[in-house]
């Protein structure tokens, strides 16, 4: 796992990363039924994963985040980020590839 932008946050980042990664692996493969059933199952599943994350990684995430937020301010990077955020690249996503694209 790579370094944090601030040396002081690196231990927190590593702990957070490894917690997140093991949660993420399960998150990427939701229960099979969820794919076929309707929106309700999807939302219930999402809710469950969010609770799981909170229980396992919530605390270390908040510690790491507050460390990085402070480091960004100290380095004056917060304004640079603010500007980039306003342009919001994900609002206008790239269209899906034209080739056959089966999700089900």
């Amino acid at each position, binding site marked *: 796992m*790579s370094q944090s932008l601030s040396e002081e*946050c690196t231990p927190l980042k590593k702990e957070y990363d490894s917690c997140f990664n093991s949660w993420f692996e399960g998150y990427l493969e939701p229960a099979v039924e969820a794919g076929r059933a309707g929106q309700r199952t999807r939302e219930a599943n*999402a809710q469950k994963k969010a609770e799981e994350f909170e229980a396992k990684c919530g605390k270390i995430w908040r510690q790491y985040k507050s460390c990085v937020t402070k480091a960004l301010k100290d380095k004056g990077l917060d304004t640079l980020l603010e500007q980039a955020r306003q342009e919001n690249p*994900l609002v206008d996503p*790239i269209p*899906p*590839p034209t080739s*056959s694209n*089966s999700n089900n």
Partner: protein
Amino acid sequence: MRFFSQSYTYDDSWAIVTLAFFLRYPNPYAAHVISCDVISREQTPSGSLVTTRLILKKGSMPRWFPRGIVSRAESWVIEESEVDPFGKIVRCVTKNLDHVKVMQVEESVQFAQIAEGKTLQHTEARVVSKFGWGLTKKIENHGLSRFKMNMQRSREGVSLILNLLRQSRLQPM
């Protein structure tokens, strides 16, 4: 503006390719990555995961580039991604935050599940320079050819991580 797009198919499932993509730093093909931080990350009510990462990359200026304009050859890069595990799709947009007048490279990558459990990666890049002095075109062309080279390396990095993931999954716990 210079535009480039390319598609590539992985034989692996969407979940494992996506995992490898998010785990790709550090790897020996990405020695230019100095730091990588998650700035914000949240799950939407419908279950997608939206993440912003801030990455510091080492760069180098071409030999023909005028001295003294870019004081340090490092660049902050912002990466915004959205992962939808139900629709099995990842969208990710990356761009540099500094030196943008000299050159801005915006890269969009998408990973989608396709037939037979394979994964399609679609990449688009836009290279824009506002430098002027008769160098705009040269800078954009340089940026584009470097992007193509880096793309090859970045794919090798993802493949390396993919191999490690496959091996670790084959081992009994």
